[in-house]
């Protein structure tokens, strides 16, 4: 379970195709800049990034499950571990750590010490309310929704706002059981 995941993350990362990190960073920066120019409102940009992340997440989950061969997770704790160790490693090349579990086990924090999206970036004074990496929260939300978990993802700490790491708070709202479009009997 947990001891297996870190090795799986590295092994998967070694097998997938990789792209230059600076290209990725600069492309993402260009996207955010363009959104700011088009939408002009920081809140709108945050929402749009989240929406973009959601669209990515619903497609990403299939690739993730296909490439990483992880088994079905028993509970949300295992889900969070898999996201942090295997998911982030596979797609961003960095591992996150899972901390601050609440007593019910439905809410946790994913902490990224090192975030390739924010290399070289400094927020200007006019955009202080911008959640630059909001796409990540959308990705997690979208991916988990596709495996029947409704979640809410918020930012606790952000490196661009002066903190030392990026911290995402993931809260499981409810587990939606799979619905079959037809009844089994008759």
């Amino acid at each position, binding site marked *: 379970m947990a001891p297996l995941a870190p090795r799986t993350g590295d092994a998967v990362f070694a097998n997938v195709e990789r792209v230059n990190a*600076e290209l990725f*960073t*600069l492309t993402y*920066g*260009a996207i*955010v*800049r363009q959104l700011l120019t088009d939408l002009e409102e920081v809140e709108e940009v945050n929402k749009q990034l989240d929406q973009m992340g959601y669209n990515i997440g619903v497609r990403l989950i299939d690739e993730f499950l296909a490439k990483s061969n992880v088994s079905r997770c028993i509970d949300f704790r295992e889900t969070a571990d898999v996201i942090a160790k295997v998911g982030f490693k596979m797609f961003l090349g960095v591992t996150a750590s899972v901390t601050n579990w609440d007593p019910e086990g439905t809410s946790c924090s994913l902490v990224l010490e090192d975030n390739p999206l924010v*290399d*070289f*970036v*400094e*927020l*200007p004074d006019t*955009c202080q309310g911008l959640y630059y990496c909001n796409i990540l929260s959308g990705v997690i939300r979208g991916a988990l929704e596709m495996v029947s978990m409704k979640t809410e993802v918020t930012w606790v700490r952000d490196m661009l706002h002066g903190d030392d790491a990026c911290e995402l708070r993931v809260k499981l709202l409810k587990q939606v059981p799979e619905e079959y479009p037809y009844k089994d009997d008759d």
Partner: protein
Amino acid sequence: MQQSPARSEARYSVGIGVADSLLALFRPRTKGKAWIPELRLRGRPAAAAFATKMIVCVAVVGHQNNPLYLQSFTEADDALKLHHIIHCSLDVIDERINNPKKSGPTLNEAFLGLLYPTENYKVYGYLTNTKVKFIMVTTDLDVKDADVRTFFRRFHAAYVDAVSNPFHVPGKKITSKAFAQRVSSIVKSFGSAATT
């Protein structure tokens, strides 16, 4: 000094003699700063009591000779004079670009070298491939070429990182605080191998 009065008197008179010779070596600084003992720097003029390898000013100038970053590192208020020196050195750079010296290796065209020495300053230039110029003014009397090249290399790296910021508009001034901090630390470590 709790000896008997006679002895302390004698000591006191000796003390004055010693103190006089010491005072001859101490020189009061302007602006009310503390006296810096020059016992180890006998014979050197007061100005050299500062760090001898000191960069007073760095500048980044765009390809249309527009200033992108200007930072002076002295408390003296001749910052305007330094800016003027930099402005004049732009002419020298333009000359060098238009009439490239065919002699010598053309491998490292980036480093332009000593542009021109004025009074007690030396001005060095560095040209990037995008025609962005870095200019450095130093009060150093004998600066090593290798030190300057190292300085410019580090400065270039800091500049590239600052420009990679998606919120930086190319052609506008560099407003990044991280860049300013990096430049300060690069300047501080300039020639650190041989600082007094």
